[in-house]
């Protein structure tokens, strides 16, 4: 199976002006959803509170989804260990804080460690299998899933661990709506990291090389891009984004356990697929959408308690895949016989 690559000319044609973008049904749909949310928030304080929480959690899902998308775009591998990797790096941050680092010192140090971890994993175990088959690559990441889980359990044990919350437990009130600093902080930190990654891809030569290596490996190699190294860097970056998602997810779960990211991984899958699996912007938008949707459903539909949040996410994923497998921003894959 090979996806037919469209010629550069087609891509230019596809890129319509600002007016064309505004008339795109997907954009219209998103604008309509945003307006509906805004109206709901103005009419009901409860709705507004759920929406803010949903956006905070959604930012985390989006961050992890973006990590998945970066890896998928570059190597066409879904990294099932992405969530566990994020969980492990969160434990690293916990350990650093135990050793007396402040939260934000530990945060930065953890991101650096995550980057190294991501690149090392890609070099050691992914590079040998990434061109073999989908199943082989999936199994290797599944093996990593179990391995990382085991290592964390071995070093830190399975008990609850408590981390200092970076944003405290304070909240502020806007027109009758209580908003915890936490959720605003989650949105802020994740989106800041996403913007940094976007800037890296958009404005630096390194980012250009990475995009080229992901989209046109052969052509990129011709013009001197070291494709394999760019893919390795991509894994490192994905690990960093995962670490951010893990660190921001931890305070919303109140404590740290080795299963921190397992449910979030499923939400991130749904987010990535909703966004189109190849679209970084789509992953973030998808994450926010999934986060808000799940929070509202659990908050308002009494038949669906918190226990059913995962099955609902499964249903959403199923629905997306059946109705629009290419997601909101994805390109339809065309098979060549």
């Amino acid at each position, binding site marked *: 199976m090979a996806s037919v690559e469209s010629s550069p000319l087609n891509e230019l044609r596809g890129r319509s002006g600002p007016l064309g973008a505004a008339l795109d049904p997907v954009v219209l749909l998103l604008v309509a959803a945003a307006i509906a949310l805004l109206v709901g928030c103005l009419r009901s304080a409860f709705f507004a509170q759920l929406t803010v929480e949903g956006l905070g959690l959604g930012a985390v899902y989006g961050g992890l989804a973006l990590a998945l998308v970066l890896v998928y775009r570059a190597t066409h591998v879904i990294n099932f260990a992405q969530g566990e990797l994020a969980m492990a790096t969160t434990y690293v941050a916990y350990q650093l804080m135990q050793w007396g680092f402040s939260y934000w010192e530990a945060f930065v140090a953890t991101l650096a460690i995550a980057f190294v971890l991501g690149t090392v994993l890609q070099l050691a175990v992914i590079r040998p299998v990434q061109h073999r088959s989908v199943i082989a690559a999936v199994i290797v990441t599944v*093996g990593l899933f179990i391995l990382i889980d085991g290592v964390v359990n071995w070093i830190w044990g399975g008990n609850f661990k408590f981390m200092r919350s970076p944003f405290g437990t304070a909240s502020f009130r806007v027109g009758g709506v209580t908003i915890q600093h936490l959720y605003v902080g989650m949105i802020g930190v994740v989106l800041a990291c996403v913007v940094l990654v976007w800037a890296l891809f958009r404005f630096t030569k390194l980012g250009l090389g990475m995009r080229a290596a992901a989209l046109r490996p052969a052509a990129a190699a011709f013009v001197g891009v070291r494709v394999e190294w760019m893919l390795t860097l991509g894994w490192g970056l994905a690990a960093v984004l995962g670490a951010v998602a893990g660190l921001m997810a931890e305070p919303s779960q109140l404590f740290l356990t080795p299963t921190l990211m397992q449910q979030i991984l499923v939400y991130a899958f749904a987010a990535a697929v909703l966004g189109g699996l190849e679209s970084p912007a789509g992953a973030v938008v998808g994450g926010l959408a999934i986060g808000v949707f799940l929070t509202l459903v659990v908050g308002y539909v009494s038949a669906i308690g918190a226990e059913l949040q995962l099955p609902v996410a499964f249903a959403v994923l199923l629905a997306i895949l059946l109705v629009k497998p290419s997601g909101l921003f994805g390109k339809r894959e065309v098979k060549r016989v």
Partner: protein
Amino acid sequence: MSTRLPALGSLVVVAAVLSALPFTLSDYHVALAAQVGIFFVGVLGLNILTGYSGQISIGHGAFMAIGGYTTAIMSRDHHTNLVLTMVMAFAICFALGLILGLPALRLSGVYLALLTFALAVSVPQLPLQYSTFLGGSGGVQSSTTVSNVWLYAAAWTCSAILFALAWLVLRGRTGRALRAVRDSEIAATASGVSLPLYKTFAFGISAAYAGVAGSLFVLATNGFAQPTEFSVTLSLQLLIGAAVAGLGSLWGVLAGAAFVGLLPQVSTSVPVIGSAHGRDVVFGAMVVLVMLVLPGGFAGLFDRLRALGRA
């Protein structure tokens, strides 16, 4: 599982060794051997799906959960004969597998992997929500428990029956059609193979096998069906077993089942990390290592060894 009659000799050897084992092993080791039998059933089923029809599933632990809960609930509420509950588990999971096979028709590769992974994570949540019928987080206790030897006999009898069934189904037209679908869907359609029929059938049959494995699995945990027993790790183990087994060989499936059934147990006695937590380290590392070293799984290894022997 090969299309020709598997060498009768190896079948006889396997059967003889298996029937002698309970008389020579300690009770603990019989329980371990039963564990391998349970995984043999599950891996065999998943091998039909991934090996023959080329679809991937990270969600067969969900079907094991459904099969296991079927056994536990029927036994709890009606004191049903355990063998009958296994037949029931087979039937229910076959039907549910067909249903999941329908959306799977439109998906392939990574998308199917994502969807089935979500299924594996979702299903253990259902008992927590519907706790009156499904027992909540405390689980469901079946009314009868079985001895390790009973379990061993049941697991390997099921293995033998289901192996024969797989051989009967896969040796002829159906096996050929499934392999054609795996190698090229378009070419298979052009040759008159009905994709929907065969792909959903493969899903159904592999889910049914997982259901039986789940029934046995619950009996192995003293007839106790609990959500935590059916965590996503179980699905991962099945997939690993099928991948490690490689394609289309009895020995491969045996090796794959032994790999996922025994390795976590054996590695608890490894020094330094011999704790209950350390076993995942060894298991995960071995999975990665085997995939790097043996691209064709154990079946590929055996083929290579045979080729070496001939040369």
